[in-house]
């Protein structure tokens, strides 16, 4: 266990080295946040959407940009994928750790370190933006606490899903196909492209039973009070169940892959 913990720490510190990437990420975040504020502004001025208030959606937009790295689906770990293609995975197999947990921690640490560098400036700018395009304060103190828990669990769940995708890469010659398909489907069904309350009713129903809305959509809506406290607690319970299911599936796929692994040449 101590090995996994110190690996998490090392990866976290290593991730904090990428400062230029963070600055570039910040610029993109501001651009997207302001653009979406304008789009939703235009949209809401001519329509009333009973499922989500304008205030809630602007808050949603700013939070989404602040925690983008934490919740971004199309996140490939090129080191893991390369180690599969070029056989460096052999080294990992000659170590006394469980490879699934090891890579899981690597991806998780990467997400947290990337988000850590970026979230604060975006939140601050969001708070000082002119009304009504500003990030509002949390609906209530309990909503805020539940938002933090749900956001962290969302990242834990996302890393589990990413591990499944990385494990499937073991079976394919090139990982691009599986990533393109799965991340696009996930982005749509998770509310990453458009918040779930703005999707057609039938799609909303479908997404309710899938794990993807629990990756971030639920968290941002808990923050603004769009999801009330009892529903928020229900969602967090659901997150925990999904985390167990997803991790067991990923673990089994990975074990199957490792049994078949044949590191050739070199």
């Amino acid at each position, binding site marked *: 266990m101590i090995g996994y913990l110190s690996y998490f720490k090392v990866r976290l510190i290593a991730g904090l080295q990428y400062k230029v990437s963070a600055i570039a990420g910040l610029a993109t975040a501001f651009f997207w946040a302001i653009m979406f504020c304008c789009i939703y502004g235009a949209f809401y001025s001519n329509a009333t959407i009973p499922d989500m208030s304008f205030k809630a959606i602007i808050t949603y937009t700013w939070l989404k940009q602040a925690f983008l790295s934490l919740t971004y689906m199309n996140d490939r770990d090129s080191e893991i994928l390369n180690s599969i293609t070029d056989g460096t995975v052999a080294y990992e197999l000659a170590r*006394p750790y469980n490879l699934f947990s090891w890579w899981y921690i690597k991806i998780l640490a990467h997400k947290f370190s990337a988000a850590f560098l970026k979230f604060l400036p975006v939140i601050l700018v969001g708070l000082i933006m002119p009304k009504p395009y500003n990030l509002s304060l949390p609906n209530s103190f309990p909503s805020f606490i539940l938002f933090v828990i749900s956001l962290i669990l969302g990242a834990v769940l996302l890393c589990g899903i990413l591990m499944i995708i990385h494990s499937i890469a073991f079976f394919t010659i090139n990982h691009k196909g599986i990533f393109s398909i799965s991340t696009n489907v996930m982005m749509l069904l998770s509310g990453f492209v458009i918040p779930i309350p703005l999707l057609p009713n039938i799609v909303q129903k479908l997404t309710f039973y899938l794990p993807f809305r629990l990756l971030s959509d639920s968290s941002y809506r808990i923050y603004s009070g769009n999801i009330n406290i009892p529903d928020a607690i229900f969602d967090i319970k659901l997150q925990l169940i999904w985390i167990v299911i997803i991790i067991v599936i990923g673990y089994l796929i990975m074990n199957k892959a490792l049994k078949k692994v*044949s*590191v050739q040449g070199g």
Partner: protein
Amino acid sequence: MIEVKHLCKTFRVLKRKGGIRATLKTFIKRDYTYIKAVDDVSFSIKKGEIVGYIGPNGAGKSTTIKMLTGILNPDSGSVRVGGIDPFKDRKKYVKNIGVVFGQKSQLWWDIPVIDSFNLLRDIYKIDKEEYEKNLNELVSLLKLENIINTPVRQLSLGQRMKCELVASLLHSPSILFLDEPTIGLDAVSKVALRKFIKDINQRKQVTIILTTHDMSDIEALSNRVIVIGKGKKLYDGSLSKLKKDFGNSKILEIIYNKLDKIPEGIDVIKKTNNSILINIGDNSSSDIIAKFVKVCEVKDINIYEDNIDNIILKLYKEYNL
């Protein structure tokens, strides 16, 4: 300590001709060829030995090493290391071995070397005192004091390889697998690395299994060699016996101004305008020189002893590899 019995491993390789038609055909029917990478190999290695495991590219060296380290599952046959089956008991087994693959890196490229070492300490749960002792000893043996605070990405290949060796020895393994450890290194680094490996073997009685294409590695390090080719074991024994059996010939070079006719009864390897290479074989070199002195003006002579590379080449030729 290491017991390998009738070890076999077959790889399935997709067979596909070039071109569009052949590629489309694979959608319907796939042809595979089966390559026996390791074919009925048996040997045993005692504690504290240094064994050179050599063979041409694609002979099955790395595959054997990967089965010995528990990375690959053998198709048939058995590997037992100190009574443990490496593949089945992988997590328990790997605590006891160190591995260096010359073509790959086990250090984390974006953090300083010392952080990699500290991480390995936590992974292997090395006792703090033992870790400090091992680290200090290894670092001073290889004179790495100045570079352990540098990120791995900024090290030269020679420096990195030294750090890789330290990384593989921190947890005091009883067996060390070195897969082409000197690949790409310059002469100075090679010598330093060899000296270190020999030192470690003698100090700590670490069993070392070494694969390499550089025969001088083997010459400097190991007394015992196992030669493998096309998956089969060709030779297992001392290096000196291998030399005796396959390397008894000497080569004579004669340099002259002009030579009209080569004397009879001479085994010529190569002739140029002003020099000739002769396989001495069972003849005496003075007889050959005497014959040449009669027909031309000899300017200089050189005698070469067969080196280990030629011996291995002969061995490969003998088995048609």
